């Protein structure tokens, strides 16, 4: 680590005394992590209450306990809450808490960014839940299919709160994920090569990378729907030339990788729990790690398996069927490895281990029904029925939530210094095991009986009342189990057995420090020569490095500001690619309905203004060189020129907009105008943001706060600035030159 890192640490040193304010102002990764987890717990209860109400309504046929309006709001909010306010924060919380500890770092790469990422969430959640007070909570389902979610069919403000809430939370998630990527790549302790990080860290790195590329498609879909709803464009309105399917494509390009955003951390957690309670290392580390990377790569190519029933062509059906089958394989690899890890082990049936075992079995069931859906004709029968509800709850509760429980019992002692009560833990386990399977196993059969999902009530068809009754009644067991867990947590916090540093005889670095760890995490680190440094310390005669060689640490760490900039730029690139795809989709066929690129755009004039923007990249490069060389005057001169050139470009864009609008080419005119203003408008916003960053740099430079040692963060801003230029080159060739039509 360079000296520059050290100076930044001094900057972020904050008062860490107790009290509510210290929690609000904290930038300590452990406290931020706990805040994330508490938020997730809170919303798990809210989302759980919503689920209980849903099951109460469905307990008997023809029930009038809830109106359809309320029921539809509840299942929409249940899904949205569980995905964005429970799943995401739980894992980001664990990741925040554990990743720096596991790699022997003092904190995450950007502690203040970390706090900001967290606080975006409660704000987003507030917006989302505020909708209840307006009397119109969102009610179009958690995937808000257009055109149901467009203005003509959802007049109320519910969907608008949903859109804004999700954008706010999404921005927070991307920032949080970038932080984890930078932390793992840049902050590892000496000796901790990337091939030696615990599987939890590796898989969470994959998950963070996946978040970076998977939230942007959602953001572009949300942006388009906002433009539709607020500015009266028609991206998703077929009667005005829009496409009902575009939303589905964009949503599921986000939505399916999102499933792996949940599944990967569950894999990460049990990959720590199972080895420790089998007293063996993970079997086939490279395969578990590698298969996670394969999942990351494949998950982007399976989205349309949510759309087999929309009438895609034969080749699309077969392609996405094959891709979905393929992604089952790396998951299968993991099942084998976890089983093989337990094979020949010395099993300790702690509550944590029980949850991990149940995870394994239930995840296999959810995975196998997933294979059934990948066989397209079966999907044609079973999709959108209770069979699919059962399937994804087996993955998300039977798999993911059980893994979270395993993680809770496993890491609670580290986070609080107290053990959870094992007897109460086992009560919770069995209550949840029977409650969960009772609720969701019968739903497979309801699907085969023809019960569609998302119906607020149903007729008294043969068998439906019985199975729905069983399903609803079983929920009681999960509710009681949850109360037991809460009681356990309260009781253990007050009088729980003191944990000590390493109560489980575990392997990884977080167990080398006190429970809970001090603010700077470690007083001293054990030597890191293998994947299990704490095991090596405890069992020197069987130390891993004696038996299994792992690649030595080269000691090189990339600059974290650069890593951050690149991750951010990749995320933004995905966003723009999808916006440009939208442009191409809606403008590839010549239409004589209103303005088009050929008829209204002044290409030569915009080309000249583009020249200004491109020149600013060059001047930025000059200023960067001057800063490195320590020539303040020339640095400021070139930076000032860069800012000026950017402003000239924006003025050109303003001129162009004014001309178009005075000619009645406005964003609601037709799809060319909508796509044109959306793409160039978002680009303009990015230029503006870049200019603000540059202006801050300029001010810092003038006051002499920006010197040679800060050249790395300055270069990081440069990455962004050049990126904005590259995007413009694409925008210009696609929109102004019509490159896609050649």
């Amino acid at each position, binding site marked *: 680590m360079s000296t520059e890192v050290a100076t930044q640490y001094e900057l972020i040193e904050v008062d860490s005394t107790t009290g509510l304010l210290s929690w609000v102002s904290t930038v300590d990764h452990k406290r931020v992590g706990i805040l994330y987890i508490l938020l997730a717990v809170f919303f798990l209860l809210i989302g759980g209450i919503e689920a209980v109400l849903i099951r109460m309504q469905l307990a008997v046929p023809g029930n009038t306990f809830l109106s359809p309006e309320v029921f539809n709001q509840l299942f929409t909010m249940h899904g949205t809450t569980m995905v964005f306010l429970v799943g995401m924060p739980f894992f980001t919380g664990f990741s925040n808490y554990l990743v720096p500890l596991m790699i022997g770092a003092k904190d995450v790469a950007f502690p203040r960014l970390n706090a900001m990422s967290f606080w975006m969430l409660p704000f987003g959640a507030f917006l989302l839940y505020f909708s209840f007070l307006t009397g119109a909570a969102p009610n179009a389902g958690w995937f808000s299919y257009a*055109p149901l979610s467009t203005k003509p069919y959802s007049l109320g403000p519910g969907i608008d709160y949903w859109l804004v809430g999700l954008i706010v939370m999404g921005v927070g998630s991307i920032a949080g994920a970038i932080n984890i990527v930078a932390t793992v790549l840049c902050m590892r302790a000496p000796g901790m090569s990337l091939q030696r990080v615990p599987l939890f860290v590796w898989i969470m790195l994959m998950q963070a990378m996946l978040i970076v590329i998977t939230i942007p498609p959602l953001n572009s879909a949300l942006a388009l729907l906002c433009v539709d709803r607020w500015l009266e464009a028609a991206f998703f309105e077929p*009667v005005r030339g829009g496409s009902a399917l575009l939303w589905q494509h964009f949503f599921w390009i986000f939505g399916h990788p999102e499933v792996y955003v949940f599944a990967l951390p569950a894999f990460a957690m049990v990959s720590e729990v199972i080895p420790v309670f089998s007293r063996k290392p993970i079997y086939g580390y490279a395969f578990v790690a590698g298969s996670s990377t394969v999942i990351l790569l494949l998950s982007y190519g399976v989205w349309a398996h949510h759309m087999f029933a929309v*009438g895609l062509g034969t080749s699309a059906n077969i392609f996405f069927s*094959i891709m979905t*089958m393929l992604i089952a394989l790396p998951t299968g690899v993991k099942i084998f490895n976890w089983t093989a890890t337990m094979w020949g082990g*010395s099993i300790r*049936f702690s509550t944590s281990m029980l949850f991990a075992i149940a995870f394994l079995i239930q995840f296999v069931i959810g995975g196998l029904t997933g294979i059934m859906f990948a066989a397209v004709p079966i999907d*044609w029968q079973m999709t959108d029925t209770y069979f699919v509800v059962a399937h994804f709850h087996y993955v998300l509760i039977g798999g993911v939530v059980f893994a979270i429980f395993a993680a809770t019992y496993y890491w609670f002692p580290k986070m609080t210094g107290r053990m959870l009560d094992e007897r109460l833990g086992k009560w919770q386990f069995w209550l949840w095991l029977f409650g969960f399977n009772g609720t969701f196993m019968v739903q497979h059969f309801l699907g085969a009986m023809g019960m569609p999902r998302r119906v607020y009530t*149903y007729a008294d068809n043969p068998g439906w009342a019985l199975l729905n009754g069983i399903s609803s009644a079983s929920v009681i067991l999960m509710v009681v189990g949850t109360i037991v867990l809460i009681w356990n947590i309260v009781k253990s916090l007050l009088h729980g057995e003191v944990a000590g540093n390493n109560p489980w005889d575990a392997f990884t670095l977080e167990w080398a420090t006190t429970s809970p760890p001090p603010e700077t995490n470690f007083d001293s680190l054990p030597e890191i020569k293998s994947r299990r440094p704490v095991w090596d310390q405890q069992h020197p005669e069987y130390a891993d490095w004696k038996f299994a060689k792992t690649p030595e640490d080269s000691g090189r760490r990339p600059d974290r500001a650069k890593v951050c900039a690149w991750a951010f730029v990749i995320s933004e690139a995905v966003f723009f690619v999808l916006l440009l795809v939208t442009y191409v989709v809606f403008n590839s066929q010549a239409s004589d309905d209103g303005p088009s690129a050929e008829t209204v755009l002044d290409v030569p004039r915009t080309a000249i203004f583009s020249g200004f923007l491109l020149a600013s990249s060059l001047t930025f490069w000059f200023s960067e060189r001057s800063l490195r060389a320590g020539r303040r005057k020339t640095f400021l001169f070139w930076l000032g020129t860069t800012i000026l050139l950017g402003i000239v470009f924006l003025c050109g864009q303003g001129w162009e907009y004014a001309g178009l609008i005075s000619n009645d080419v406005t964003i609601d005119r037709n799809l060319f105008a909508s796509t044109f203003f959306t793409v160039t408008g978002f680009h303009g916003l990015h230029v503006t943001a870049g200019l603000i960053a540059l202006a801050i740099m300029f001010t810092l430079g003038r006051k002499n706060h920006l010197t040679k040692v800060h050249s790395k963060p300055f270069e990081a801003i440069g990455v962004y600035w050049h990126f904005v230029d590259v995007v413009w080159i694409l925008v210009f060739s696609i929109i102004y030159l019509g490159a896609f039509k050649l």
Partner: protein
Amino acid sequence: MFPVFQPESPEAQAIYDLFILVLMISAAIFIIVAGLIAVALWRGRSRAILPKQDFGSEKREIYWMVGPILIVIWITAISAKLILTVNAFPKIQPPGDEMAEADLTVTGHQWWWEIEHHESGIVEANEIYIPTGKKLRVKLQSADVIHCFWVPQLARKMDVIPGRENYIWLEAGKPGVYQGRCAEYCGNQHAWMNFKVYALTTDEFAKWESGEKVAPGTPAEPAAVAGEKLFFAHTCSNCHTVAGTVAQATIGPDLTRVASRKQLAGGAIENSTENLVRWLKNPQAIKPGCKMPNFKFSDDEARQVAAYLESLN
């Protein structure tokens, strides 16, 4: 009880066969995996000594994957074959092919189905009468949001998407009544967007067709005549069609044959005079949020309108 497992058409049968095969394969995989886990746990339950620190073997990992890979290829192949068969739908017909025209057009509305028989021009709502043993080409389209057409015993489900025409085959192997539903969430009353397919023998179907072609009756008794007045005074004709009158709108179901239908309101209630009156008095009480407003008919008025509607048949 299990319509998915009681297929009554060749297409549904083929899907069922595939489902059962994949179900068996999955069950076998589950038993093997769960069995291995159980054995591992049983053997390791009281092992006190420190177990051998086994880091894994690349060779074994690769051997293991052979089985799953073969299974995945197998399932992919058989499902791809079935995709080709079912999708071998002449959706894009060579121009001029007379077969290109659909036999039926089904239009999804919030929250009911409109069915048009092309040859006879008969229009139905929420009931589809078909001849048994005939493969019918169905064009699916939507008047508003996305719906999904699903008759589990007869055909695959297919989304009904605004701005897009989807096609499926509909065929019943034997006479009977087959439950259909909207399977894609389409707003407030998605739950009551059910329909039924009535597969008749060829003779019965011909009889039904000719019955449908008989001109609607004219109201004679005083209650029905009063009801007719109310019907046209209360803007009913802005949304509904009654053949042979000025009421020709298609926002709500065609009411010419409403008295002959088995169910009302997308399956929410059985059709009887009492229920029809109840519906007319306040549709919002039966199907809250549906597009038909509450006209606040008095008991008598509702009975008169019902009498009018029933006199049409």
